[in-house]
C-alpha cells in the first residue's frame, strides 16, 4: 500500500558503515632552532564522505593530494586533527547530527534566533527520543529534558528562571548532545579499550609489500599476529574445534597460497605473494571494512590483475567494504562502485563510476581522465592535459584550490571556495562552473 513510505523508512533505518564529517588533518611545519611552528601542511582539509556497507569507494588523486592520509586517519594511524569519523551509525543519527552541527555554527556566529532554538529542541528530541540512537537511557532522558526546557524558554516561558534562558542553555546542550553522539559513534572519540575492539573491524593493506611485513617473522606469525592481540579467533559461528592454526591455514588458502608457505620468511616471496600475505593478515580478524592503500601500484600488470581479482572475490565472499585508494584511475574504475577525486586535501568530485567517467564535471577530473594514456592507438588524441603542477599544501591557493591551473577560472574562483553540491544521480561536484558545457571526452 505504501511502498514509498516503506522505502524511505528503510533508508532511515539504514546503518551507514563509515562516514567522515569535515575530517581534517594538519601536519605542523617546524622551523628554526626551537622548532617554531611556521605553518601547517593541509594534508586533509575537510573531507566528508560516506561509505555504505558492501560497496567499494575509490579515492583517486595525485601524490600529495592527501588520499593516503584519509585512509590512515580513518584507521587512526594518524588521528585526524578535527572532524568526526562515524562508524556503523544509523542514518537518522547522522542526519540529526548534521542538523545539530549546522545549528551550532549559527549559534557560534551569533545569528541564532528563537526559531533555531525550537528547531534544536525538536531535533534533539527526535534524536534522543528514538530507539535507533544507542545512548544510555539516563543520558537520553537528561538531554531530552534539556531540549524541553530550551523549547519552553524559546517559546517565552518565563517560569523556568534565568538559568534556562535559551541563549545560554542552547550552545551548552548542543555541545553535550554532539559529544554524546560522537563518543558513542565516532572512531576518533573512542576510549583506548573500545578502540582496540574496533581495530579488529577496520583493517588496512599498504602499498609497499616490502616493508609491510616484518622481515623476522614467519608468515604464520604475521598472519596470526591479530590473534596474539585479540585472543584466538571466535569459534562461535564456526565449528567447535576451530583453533588458531586451522584459521591461519584457512586464511592462507583463501588468499591463494599454500600451507608450506607458512613457515617461510617474507623475503622468500614475490611482491604479489607478499601482498596476499598482507591481505590474509588483514582478513584474520574478520573485519567489515578494509582500507586498500594503493595495494597494487608496486606490482606488475599481470600480477596486479591477479590481486585485483582476488580482492573482488574476497569482497563477494565476505561482504567486505573497501576504500580503494590509488593514483591510477583505470584501476580504481575497475574496482569501485563510486569514485571520489581529491585535489590538495579536498574532495572535488564524487560520483558513481559510470557517471564520473562519462559525465565528469570538475575541470580537474576532466584533465585527470584526459591524461590517462589509453592502450589503444586508435585514440591517438591530441591531449588536452593541464599545465603547471600541484601547489604546495602548506599554503594552498585561496578560493578554489584548482584555480591557478584551471582554464575556466573566473574572479569568484579566486575568492570563494566552492562547496561540494549534489547535482543529481548521486553526483557531487565542488566547482562554480560545473554547468559549463564540455565536449565529450571518450
Amino acid at each position, binding site marked *: 500500500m505504501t511502498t514509498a513510505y516503506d522505502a524511505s523508512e528503510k533508508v532511515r533505518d539504514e546503518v551507514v558503515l563509515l562516514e567522515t564529517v569535515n575530517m581534517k588533518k594538519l601536519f605542523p611545519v617546524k622551523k628554526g632552532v626551537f622548532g617554531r611552528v611556521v605553518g601547517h601542511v593541509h594534508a586533509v582539509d575537510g573531507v566528508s564522505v560516506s561509505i555504505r556497507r558492501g560497496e567499494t569507494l575509490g579515492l583517486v588523486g*595525485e*601524490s600529495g593530494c592527501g588520499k593516503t592520509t584519509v585512509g590512515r586517519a580513518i584507521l587512526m594511524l594518524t588521528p585526524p586533527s578535527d572532524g568526526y569519523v562515524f562508524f556503523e551509525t544509523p542514518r537518522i543519527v547522522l542526519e540529526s547530527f548534521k542538523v545539530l552541527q549546522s545549528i551550532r555554527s549559527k549559534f557560534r556566529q551569533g545569528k541564532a534566533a528563537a526559531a533555531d532554538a525550537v528547531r534544536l529542541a525538536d531535533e534533539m528530541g527526535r534524536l534522543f527520543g528514538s530507539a535507533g540512537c544507542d545512548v544510555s537511557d539516563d543520558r537520553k532522558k537528561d538531554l531530552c529534558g534539556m531540549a524541553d526546557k530550551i523549547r519552553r524558554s524559546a517559546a517565552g516561558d518565563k517560569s523556568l528562571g534565568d538559568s534556562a534562558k535559551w541563549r545560554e542553555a542552547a550552545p551548552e546542550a548542543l555541545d553535550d548532545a554532539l559529544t554524546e553522539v560522537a563518543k558513542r559513534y565516532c572512531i576518533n572519540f573512542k576510549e583506548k579499550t573500545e578502540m582496540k575492539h574496533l581495530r579488529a573491524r577496520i583493517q588496512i593493506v599498504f602499498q609497499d609489500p616490502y616493508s609491510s611485513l616484518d622481515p623476522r617473522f614467519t608468515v604464520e606469525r604475521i598472519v596470526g599476529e591479530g590473534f596474539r592481540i585479540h585472543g584466538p579467533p571466535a569459534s562461535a559461528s564456526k565449528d567447535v574445534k576451530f583453533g588458531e592454526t586451522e584459521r591461519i591455514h584457512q586464511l592462507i588458502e583463501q588468499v591463494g597460497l599454500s600451507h608450506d608457505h607458512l613457515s617461510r620468511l617474507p623475503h622468500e616471496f*614475490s611482491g*604479489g605473494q607478499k601482498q596476499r600475505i598482507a591481505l590474509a593478515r588483514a582478513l584474520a580478524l574478520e573485519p567489515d571494512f578494509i582500507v586498500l592503500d594503493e595495494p597494487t601500484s608496486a606490482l*606488475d*600488470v*599481470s*600480477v*596486479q*590483475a*591477479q590481486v*585485483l*581479482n582476488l580482492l*573482488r572475490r574476497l569482497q563477494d565472499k565476505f561482504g567486505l567494504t573497501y576504500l580503494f585508494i590509488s*593514483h*591510477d*584511475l*583505470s*584501476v580504481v*574504475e*575497475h574496482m569501485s562502485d563510486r569514485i571520489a577525486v581529491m585535489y590538495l586535501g579536498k574532495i572535488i568530485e564524487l560520483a558513481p*563510476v*559510470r557517471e564520473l*567517467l*562519462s559525465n565528469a564535471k570538475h575541470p580537474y577530473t576532466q*584533465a*585527470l*581522465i*584526459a*591524461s*590517462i*594514456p*589509453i*592502450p*589503444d*592507438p*586508435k*585514440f*591517438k588524441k591530441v*591531449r588536452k*592535459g*593541464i*599545465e603547471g*603542477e*600541484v601547489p604546495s599544501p602548506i599554503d594552498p591557493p585561496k578560493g578554489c584550490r584548482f584555480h591557478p591551473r584551471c582554464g575556466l577560472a573566473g574572479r569568484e574562483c579566486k575568492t570563494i571556495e566552492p562547496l561540494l553540491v549534489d547535482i543529481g544521480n548521486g553526483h557531487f561536484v565542488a566547482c562554480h562552473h560545473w554547468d559549463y558545457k564540455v565536449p565529450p571526452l*571518450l
Partner: protein
Amino acid sequence: MTTYKKPVLEIRGLKTQFFLREGTVTALDGIDLTVYENESIGMVGETGCGKSMTAFSILRLVPHPGRIESGNIFFKESEEVRSRRLRYEAEAQAWYERQPLSKKKEYFATYGPRPRDRKGREMRFTRSEVEKMTPPEIAPHKLVMTYLSLLAKKIPDSDKIGKDAALRAYDLLNKSHDYMRSVRGKKISMIFQDPTTALDPVFTVGQQLREVISLHQGIYNRAELDSRVLKILRLVRLAAPETVMKQYPHELSGGMKQRVMIALALSCGPSLLIADEPTTALDVTIQAQVLNLLKEVVRGVGSTMILITHNLGVVAETCDRICIMYAGRIVEEATAAELFEKPTHPYTAGLLNAFPKLGERKDELSVIKGTVPDLMLPFPGCAFVERCERATDVCRKVRPRRVEVYPDHFVSCHLFTGGANDNRV
C-alpha cells in the same frame, strides 16, 4: 608503397648475463631489433624482462657483475655494408632452415640455446671443433661460427661478419672505450626513470648541463655555454630557466627534474634517444605533460626514440612500433596499431587483457597465471611455456624462431612457426 626506411641501430643476437655467486642470470637472451630513423619504438615488459638492460647494453654500461656475452650492435651502418650483412644473415638463416630440428638446437647461436655440456655449463668451441660438427658441403657454416666464436671472445679470420672489417667497424661492441664515450650523450642519449636519484645532488642544474655541452661540443666560453643552457632549458619548457639553472636538483619538483633530465639528454642533439620509463615516477597529469613534451621535442630535433615502459597506454600513444619483451627475449614486434588490434603471442594477448582499461569495466580481469620464471635457470624452449595456456611439448624443448606472421609483424611462438606440429623432436 613500402618506402625505404633507414635503420639507425640494428641489434643482432644480443646476450647479456650477470655472474652472481648463486648462478648466472641471463638478463638478455638473444635480442634482435632494428630501429629505423625518425621512428619511436616502444619496448614493453614487466619487471626483470630485460627492457632496461637492453638500453644499458646498447650504451655498453651494463653494471658489474654483468657482461655482454655475445651479439652485435650496428650503429648507423652504411647502406652498402648493411645489405652485405643482410645477405650473410639470409644465407645463414637458409642453412639453418635446412637443418633437422635436433641439430638446430645444437648450432644456431642466435636463435637457439647455446650448446651446453653435461654439467650445464656453456660449451665453447675451437674452430676445428665447429668445422667437425658442421657438414662440409654447407658454405654458410662459417656464419654459425661467428656466433659461436664470439662466445669464445675471439674473432677468427675465416668468418664473414667477423672478417669483414667494414662491417665490424659499425659494431658498437667492437669499439674502444674512448669511442663509446664520444657516442654516449652525443649520438645516443638516455633518459632515466627516477629523476630524483638520477641527477647529481651536489651540482646545480647549470653545472651539470654545462659539463655535458662543453664536453661534446667543445665550447668552453662561459657566456656561450650559459646561453646554450638557457636555450635547451627553454626547449623543454621550463618556466624561469635562469632560476632553474642556478638551482640544485632537490629544489625542483619531480616534473621539473624530469624536464632537466630531458634537457640533459637532448643537449647535444643525439640521433638516438633512449627513454627508460621516463614517466613512471611522475603523477598522471605531469606524465601527460612530459610525454607530450617528449613527443614534440623528439620530432622537433629529428631524433629517433626507444621508449622503455611497462605501461601499455604510454606506448600506444607515443610509439610507432612496439616490442613486447619477456624474460630477456623479444616475443612480439609490430606496429602499434597492429599490435593492439591483433596481439598474436599469448603473452601479449594476456598482458593486454590484464590491463584495466578506462571505460571498459569488466567483472574480472583475465590474468596470466603464475609468475615470471627464474632467469637463473636455462630454458631450452620458449620462456613463456610455464604460464601459457596453449603450450605443447615442442614449446618446452625448442626455442621458437622469430617469424613474420603479418607484414612487419614478428612473433616468436611455436603456434606460428609450425614447430608445434613438428613431431621430429
